[in-house]
């Protein structure tokens, strides 16, 4: 491939259809994704610097962003821990119902978020199956920020399991055997030999889970209680601004969310490529 001299925009190929397929994808991408997103930033910018700063630094905006990013972070951490455990159990052990459990992990991908939202609310409300148990100790889950975290764990879990599972399955058992022969205890082999190989995949899973959870709306609004400054997530604030016909306000909160999540994703990707290099993959 590198032998070919780069001539212009694309390398020559005998395959047909570049013009057509490139045209279709670029047109669709521009019309459906890029131009509308550009309109968002245009609208946000049209508000003028003082209004942008006023909205961006208003306590309600900051509280909503803090909740969305904070709850998403906690949920992604919980999903990473349990997702790794579930992937490990699915790859390494055989037990009755293994195939069923493996298939069930994808449920949050398939179940519409509104359905998940009302189901989780029914479960975790003070009189629900799971909510009664913390309620005895005076802890409320539904209608508090804790409820937001519960909903975000639900939506983000499969991202971690599905990122880690293939890497665990591919891991060569001879390195474990080598570690054992060299006298490492099982615990040390797991944490010193196996998990470092899984780390990049786990970070990928964490990133996907985190990115998904930041913007989540459907499953959250039912369980959150939606109290301004307390349990109001950023996407809900956008909807509220929109319902008040405050288009610029909605666009500014949305632009802040997008910028913050892209900066975060770029940071995580940088850590990712650094850790991959360190571990010797490219």
């Amino acid at each position, binding site marked *: *491939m590198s032998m070919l001299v780069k001539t212009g*925009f*694309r390398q020559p190929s*005998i*395959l*047909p*259809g*570049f013009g057509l*397929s*490139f045209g*279709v*994808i670029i047109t*669709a*991408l521009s019309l*459906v*994704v890029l131009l509308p*997103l550009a*309109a*968002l930033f245009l*609208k946000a910018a049209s508000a003028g610097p003082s209004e942008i700063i006023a909205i961006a630094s208003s306590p309600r905006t900051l509280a909503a962003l803090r909740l969305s990013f904070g709850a998403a972070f906690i949920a992604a951490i919980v999903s990473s821990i*349990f997702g790794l455990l*579930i992937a490990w159990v699915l790859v390494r052990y055989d037990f009755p119902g293994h195939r069923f459990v493996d*298939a069930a*992990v*994808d*449920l*949050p991908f*398939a*179940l*519409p*978020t*509104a*359905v998940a939202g*009302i*189901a989780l609310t*029914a*479960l975790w409300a003070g009189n629900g*199956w*799971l909510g009664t148990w913390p309620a005895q100790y005076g802890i409320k889950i539904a209608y508090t920020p804790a409820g937001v975290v*519960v909903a975000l764990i*639900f939506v983000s*879990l499969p991202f971690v399991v599905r990122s880690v599972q293939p890497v665990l399955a*591919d891991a060569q*058992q*001879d390195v474990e*055997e080598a570690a054992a022969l060299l006298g490492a205890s*099982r615990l040390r082999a797991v944490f010193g030999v196996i998990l470092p190989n899984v780390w990049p995949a786990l970070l990928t899973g964490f990133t*996907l889970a985190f*990115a*998904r959870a*930041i*913007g989540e*709306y459907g499953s959250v609004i039912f369980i959150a209680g939606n109290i301004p400054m307390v349990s109001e997530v950023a*996407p809900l604030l*956008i*909807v509220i601004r*929109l319902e008040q016909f405050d*288009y610029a306000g909605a666009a500014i909160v*949305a632009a802040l969310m*997008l910028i913050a999540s892209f900066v975060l994703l770029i940071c995580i990707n940088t850590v990712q490529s650094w850790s991959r290099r360190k571990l010797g993959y490219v």
Partner: protein
Amino acid sequence: MSKMISASRSQPARNGSALRESNAVKALLIGTALTFLALFLFLPLVIVFMEALQRGLTTYLEAITEPDALSAMRLTLLVAAIVVPINVIVGIAGSWTIARFDFRGKNLLVSLIDLPFSVSPVIAGLIYVLLFGAQGYFGPWLREHGIEIIFALPGIVLATMFVTFPFVARELIPHMETLGSTDEEAALTLGASPWQTFFKITLPNVKWSLLYGVLLCNARAMGEFGAVAVVSGKIRGVTTTLPLQVEILYNEYMGTAAFAVASLLAFLALITLAAKTILEWHYAKEIAAMRHNS
């Protein structure tokens, strides 16, 4: 790669504590994982059907055959019937471009196709309101010409297209890259026309991953809530999809009816999972190849 795995699997693991977890640890790990899954995944699904059926089958059937529920069903099916074929064509075009050619900015194009995954669904709806809403950039022009996009079907279709945009390409690109282009080159050299090559070689080669992408795209298109909620206006019986109908009923304290409509969507999710699992079992090799490279 698969050869190596089977080779290492076929070696009997030595029966030493240094190579395996003790049975107690193993039981503890399996127990924790299954308990977590039961609490966070299984119970929510069970409670949907429990709540839906709590007032008996007759009430349940009434709730799902009520006119608003039926019109929500029709709209949901209609939106999916429009969005999925468009995204299939666009996804095939995108993966043909990316998996078969080398050009400048290819990585950027891949990232842009994936972009909708990291945009909040609410923002996906908002952008179309900013463009086509009453106070949007094209709002006045659209009103003059009597075209309705927001609070109407076209807006719901656009918002759904945005959130499901990456699904097909995402499944197809790694699969097409793994297959390589030798089959297509052979067909072309033997005198097949470009379209013949596409329909007789490319499409059959990637059919399973295409089907997989269609399945995921369809599930999301039918279940999308946030993006559609923003653009639909929630006019009962007109612009409410099934997920929006669930919200409306729930907010009106019609819990049983809300769960009854929700159970239809949960049923759809179960069918999707079953179809997905069947695809994965039967075409494990091809799907593993594409997963591995994704």
